[in-house]
């Protein structure tokens, strides 16, 4: 089965913990950089997909950015909102657009500025998390941030599977090992399990090291049909399969959304479309807003059995030298938190063999995921430097 589409350009704005411009300005910078990387003019872009953080002010990334970029005659233009699964979804819809012939060259961009003078990382995301389903209910109890709602999920998982904080810590350490080799990563100092365990809790069982590291910045990709992909200066990165999963699991007795998520359904779709199975995945780029998210993804996508992900990571299999590299940029925890574009950008870099000191030779079949809400919304892609994936075991 040949690639369904290809990523031919990858662009970054400046990434910083300081204020460096508006979401809109950063998005423009990233798209310009992506076009340069793809060897095209901005005028060659005929499709534009936009995603901003749910927590950013409404209209921070408006359709009007088309005019900032001077783009005429767009045949695809929309803003997407699917929480953390949005960036992957953008690449999915871009793929559908180029395959249908509706557009030829689609730019997809995410930009965010959670940090500003007087507004640090914790406060940026300190909004009450709706969990119960009754408007305003959580306000009385101080359930602030995704940190709190994910901590609830993590605690349940840990109870059911006898997982410990060392398993969470193992994920943080694995990402940090990769970040040490990534000049673009923000947290690169060596970290030990003792350091992790000694660090203070934010919302138990999570410590700061279990949470994404917010930064200001933007990432954009350029996507075209796979037939046109070789025109560009960089090696194309082909998309071979994609899927989504949103289970709508009711919050009541008999259901355990903390143990199995829509990642299973998203993975099923992506694997079937690509003609592969979990056993064929050589590398994972996971949406790891929390260390716990990586454990869930390993299990939901079938890389580990139920409850086994913690031991798998603790044994070193996801770290440099391990047999299943995961989050080779350092991910959200040690690399940079640009929501769904973090795993996508690193998948492209690894697939192109552009990873420098952190380049892994296991880049042939890369599973890339996005997840959002309280692990409610999931999307996945299979990416590869290979234009064709030979038929493999399922």
């Amino acid at each position, binding site marked *: 089965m040949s690639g369904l589409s290809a990523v031919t350009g990858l662009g970054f704005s400046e990434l910083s913990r300081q204020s460096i411009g508006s979401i809109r300005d950063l998005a423009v910078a990233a798209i310009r950089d992506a076009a340069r990387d793809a060897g095209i003019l901005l005028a060659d872009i005929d499709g534009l997909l936009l995603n901003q953080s749910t927590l950013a002010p409404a209209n921070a990334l408006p359709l009007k950015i088309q005019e900032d970029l001077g783009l005429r005659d767009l045949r695809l233009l929309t803003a997407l909102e699917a929480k953390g699964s949005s960036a992957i979804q953008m690449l999915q819809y871009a793929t559908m657009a180029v395959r249908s012939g509706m557009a030829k060259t689609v730019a997809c961009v995410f930009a965010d500025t959670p940090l500003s003078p007087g507004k640090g990382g914790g406060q940026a995301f300190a909004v009450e998390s709706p969990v*119960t389903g009754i408007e305003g209910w959580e306000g009385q109890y*101080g*359930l*602030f941030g995704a940190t709190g709602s994910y901590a609830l999920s993590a*605690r349940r998982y840990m*109870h059911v599977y006898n997982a410990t904080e060392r398993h969470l810590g193992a994920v943080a350490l694995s990402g940090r090992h990769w970040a040490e080799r990534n000049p673009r990563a923000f947290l690169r100092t060596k970290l030990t399990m003792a350091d992790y365990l000694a660090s203070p809790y*934010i919302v138990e069982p999570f410590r700061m090291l279990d949470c994404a590291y917010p930064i200001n910045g933007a990432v954009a990709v350029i996507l075209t049909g796979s037939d046109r992909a070789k025109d560009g200066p960089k090696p194309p990165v082909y998309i071979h399969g994609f899927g989504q999963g949103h289970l709508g699991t009711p919050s009541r007795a008999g259901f355990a959304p903390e143990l199995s998520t829509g990642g299973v359904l998203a993975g099923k779709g992506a694997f079937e479309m690509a003609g592969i199975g979990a056993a064929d995945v050589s590398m994972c780029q996971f949406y790891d807003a929390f260390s716990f998210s990586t454990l869930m993804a390993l299990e939901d996508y079938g890389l580990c059995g139920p409850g086994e992900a913690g031991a798998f990571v603790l044994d070193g299999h996801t770290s440099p030298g391990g047999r299943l590299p995961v989050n080779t940029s350092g991910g959200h925890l040690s690399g940079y938190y640009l929501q769904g574009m973090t795993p996508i950008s690193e998948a492209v870099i690894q697939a192109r063999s552009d990873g420098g000191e952190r380049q892994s030779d296991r880049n042939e079949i890369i599973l890339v995921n996005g997840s959002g809400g309280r692990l409610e919304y999931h999307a996945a892609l299979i990416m590869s430097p290979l234009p064709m994936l030979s038929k493999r075991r399922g």
Partner: protein
Amino acid sequence: MSDFDSTFLAFIAQRELRVPRCAKTGDVLSYAARLCPDGGTAIEWVKASGAATLYSFAVYRRQYSPDFPVPYNVALVELAEGPRLISTVIVDDLASLRVDMKLMADFDDAGKLVFKPA
């Protein structure tokens, strides 16, 4: 705010914990549902026994708001009738919290729904 939400909150304001149930089939819904499984809208509100278990909990240790001085716990409680909802467990020692511990609903002086170890 939808009628579903305001109905539930009106009961809470009267210090009553109620659960939503399909009038036709008797199936208990979650607090996030708005329709019966068959798509019907006839929902009735039934008094809960107050019995529950602690499905999960989180302990805030970093201050997010002056209204919520740390440390404090947020609980995801599963009512005996089935639905889960966010609340808090009133305990002297946070270290005594255990997943699956038995709880009983109560209302504090301000009329907020809370749970106590049963």
